[in-house]
């Protein structure tokens, strides 16, 4: 039984943690919250310089050629400090989609720049307040031209390339494809949008006859996107695990610091049991995330099931820890100047970024139905 990360992977995690502790405190995250910046550029450049962005990109495309497990340990640390950087958009989504579906030319064109961090990438699927699906995707791609509106697009203002879900005219699930779009062309217009988590920039993007290239096979965009989402779900689960642990520690530290009725509030069972529940959910989430990581790294057949489990478990853990962290803090926790808001905001952002928990529960049961034919 060797259900753990290797010593090398733990060293990488340590390295990420030390860098982020130094460069990405809550005060640093706050500068993004309180400015118009889409992300924290110094932190982002530092992560790129350390090679984290290229960790899972093959060496032939300018990466380090490590694997999913290395990305997982970095993700946990990014989540712990609620890092205001475009890592997930650029790496878990854009780079992974290109790795999975891209032609040699597309990989050559984009992966080296994503690996080095020279440019930022993203994936644009949603078109307003409804879960994206083949049925409600109105953006079209025909004759090499993309038309439509995507909202919200993570890091949409700063990204140079986007993988876009577009209708290509087929029926049912075959109605959509993924296409690669250079966002710097003049037929693309974009503007930032307000969200519940301003530490992560989001934009509205309009395409008017924008040049685009098909990613993978026409009509197979939905299947490819689900596969990209499954991988990203595991990586985001590690961010959620890191965030959960941070929120738990923040709440615990405050409960030891704060006195009420002549004693530390952390000595009351109402608080202790709340924190114990955070811990229980954290450990369940961590264990499910580890299994997701193992399956992702081995490219196992049950990735969809493992990813859904990791995501559902981690989403629940982070939701509970972030919201109850504010509750443990009492009034101060609800103020702008206090830090619990970072995890409250980020937990909901991550809970929705790849689709809601309900959607993933449905995906999970669909897998169970397949694998357990009575």
């Amino acid at each position: 039984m060797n259900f753990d990360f290797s010593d090398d992977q733990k060293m990488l995690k340590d390295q990420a943690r030390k860098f982020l502790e130094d460069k990405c405190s809550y005060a640093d995250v706050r500068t993004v919250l309180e400015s118009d910046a889409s992300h924290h550029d110094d932190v982002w450049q530092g992560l790129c310089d350390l090679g984290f962005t290229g960790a899972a990109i093959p060496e032939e495309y300018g990466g380090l050629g490590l694997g999913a497990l290395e990305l997982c340990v970095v993700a946990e640390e990014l989540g712990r400090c609620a890092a205001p950087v475009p890592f997930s958009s650029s790496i878990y989504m854009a780079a992974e989609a290109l790795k999975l579906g891209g032609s040699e030319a597309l990989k050559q064109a984009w992966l080296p720049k994503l690996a080095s961090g020279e440019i930022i990438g993203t994936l644009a699927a949603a078109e307003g307040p409804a879960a994206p699906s083949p049925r409600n995707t109105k953006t079209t791609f025909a004759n090499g031209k993309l038309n439509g509106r995507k909202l919200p697009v993570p890091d949409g203002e700063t990204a140079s390339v986007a993988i876009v879900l577009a209708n290509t005219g087929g029926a049912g699930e075959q109605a959509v494809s993924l296409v690669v779009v250079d966002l710097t062309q003049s037929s693309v217009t974009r503007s930032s949008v307000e969200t519940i988590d301003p530490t992560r920039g989001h934009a509205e993007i309009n395409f008017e006859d924008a040049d685009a290239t098909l990613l993978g096979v026409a009509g197979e965009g939905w299947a490819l996107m689900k596969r990209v989402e499954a991988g990203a779900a595991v990586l985001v689960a590690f961010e959620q695990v890191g965030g959960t642990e941070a929120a738990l520690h923040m709440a615990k530290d405050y409960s030891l610091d704060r006195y009420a009725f002549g004693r530390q509030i952390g000595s009351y069972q109402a608080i202790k049991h709340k924190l114990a529940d955070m811990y229980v959910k954290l450990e369940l989430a961590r264990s499910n995330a580890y299994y997701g990581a193992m399956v992702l790294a081995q490219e196992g057949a049950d990735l969809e099931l493992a990813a859904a489990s990791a995501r559902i478990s981690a989403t629940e853990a982070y939701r509970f820890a972030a919201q109850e962290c504010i509750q443990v803090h009492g009034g101060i926790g609800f103020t702008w100047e206090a830090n619990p808001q970072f995890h409250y905001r980020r937990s909901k952002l991550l809970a929705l970024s790849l689709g809601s928990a309900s959607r993933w529960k449905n995906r999970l049961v669909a897998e169970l139905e397949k694998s357990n034919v009575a």
Partner: protein
Amino acid sequence: MDFNDTPEEAKFRSEAREWLTANARQRDTSNAKASVSNKSEAERLVRAKQWQALKAEAGYAAITWPTEYGGRGGTSIQSVIYSQEEANFDVPRGFFEIGLGMCIPTMMKWATPEQNERYVKPALFGEEVWCQLFSEPAAGSDVAGLRTKCERDGDDWIINGQKVWTSGAHFCDYGIIVTRSDPTVPKHKGLTFFFLDMKTPGIEIRPIKQISGGAGFNEVFFNDVRVPDSQRLGDVGEGWKVSLTTLMNERLAIGGGSGVDHEELLKLARETELEEGPAIKDSNVREKLADWYVQSQGLKYTKFRTLTALSKGQVPGAESSIGKIVSGPKMQDLGSFAMDIQGQGGILQDGDESPMGAAFQNQWLGAAGYRIAGGTDEILRNIVSEQVLGLPQDIRVDKKVPFNELASNSKK
């Protein structure tokens, strides 16, 4: 990252599997959870004793115990590997866990070499069964509040009082007991610990019928029960220290929950028609099913993390403390929800009519007790918050006060 055995572990696993295959019957997994033995307890005990003797002879009954006590001198991971393999076989369970998991380890630490020479091997080979006499009507979670008293009389002690929730007392040969020797000092300081023969005159055992209909527990009454001082474990007044040895082993002895889980719920949801169609297509059913699947997987992989530490010869982290906090309520809620799916018919607890031999109904009733036995949900949360997270203990009003001056049910 993988689930593979090391070469040594793989070798041990195949030896264990080989031995089990030669000596036991493979479990019928097609209907395992619904199958309930219809043999009497006495018949099952006879079979369990035979199996225990065979297992001990082969060195699989106490893998981590030192060889001088009849153990194998093996590692914790070997013990886990054997249990994993044994789980695939239809072998008797449920008679020796408390004795070998809690009582004998306490003896090994506190009894004399001669006593251990006399008692350890017969327990290991299933010849003598042991029980643990701790809880009392007024001392459950707060077990140190116990009132059964012992008084010195020459070379003996006289025990009077009542114990409760004693698993298996009615078929046990020996027991370990903690009693109050001095009520005038604070409660943890006035306790004294013994082992005794359960056939000693003055001991009366009455089964407790549970809401599930079963009667695995007993009340045990002590009426002038005479125990020689030579059967005292630890010093007079040091009984709490001895008790901690037993209680530390309790978490290891009380196994994870078994019973119906997400697989059975999926099967039920497929086979049950609701007003709008099959239950499995109902979004509420799907959400619940996913939640419990994820919890079960989370517990399974948490165990794998613990095993990984054991496999590497490290001390496991605190993560194993979450097991019963999660599995108890899950068993209860899942049972309850599965009954909901059955509509009004869910009230039936009928082996022929109810799905899977009424396994959901049985579990719903039984789980109410599982959430209490071996540490309530609430006590376990205290343990996690204090021992894992380092939060302070609650303010205690009973620590420095003589036991006989404390407020209690009879003296408010």
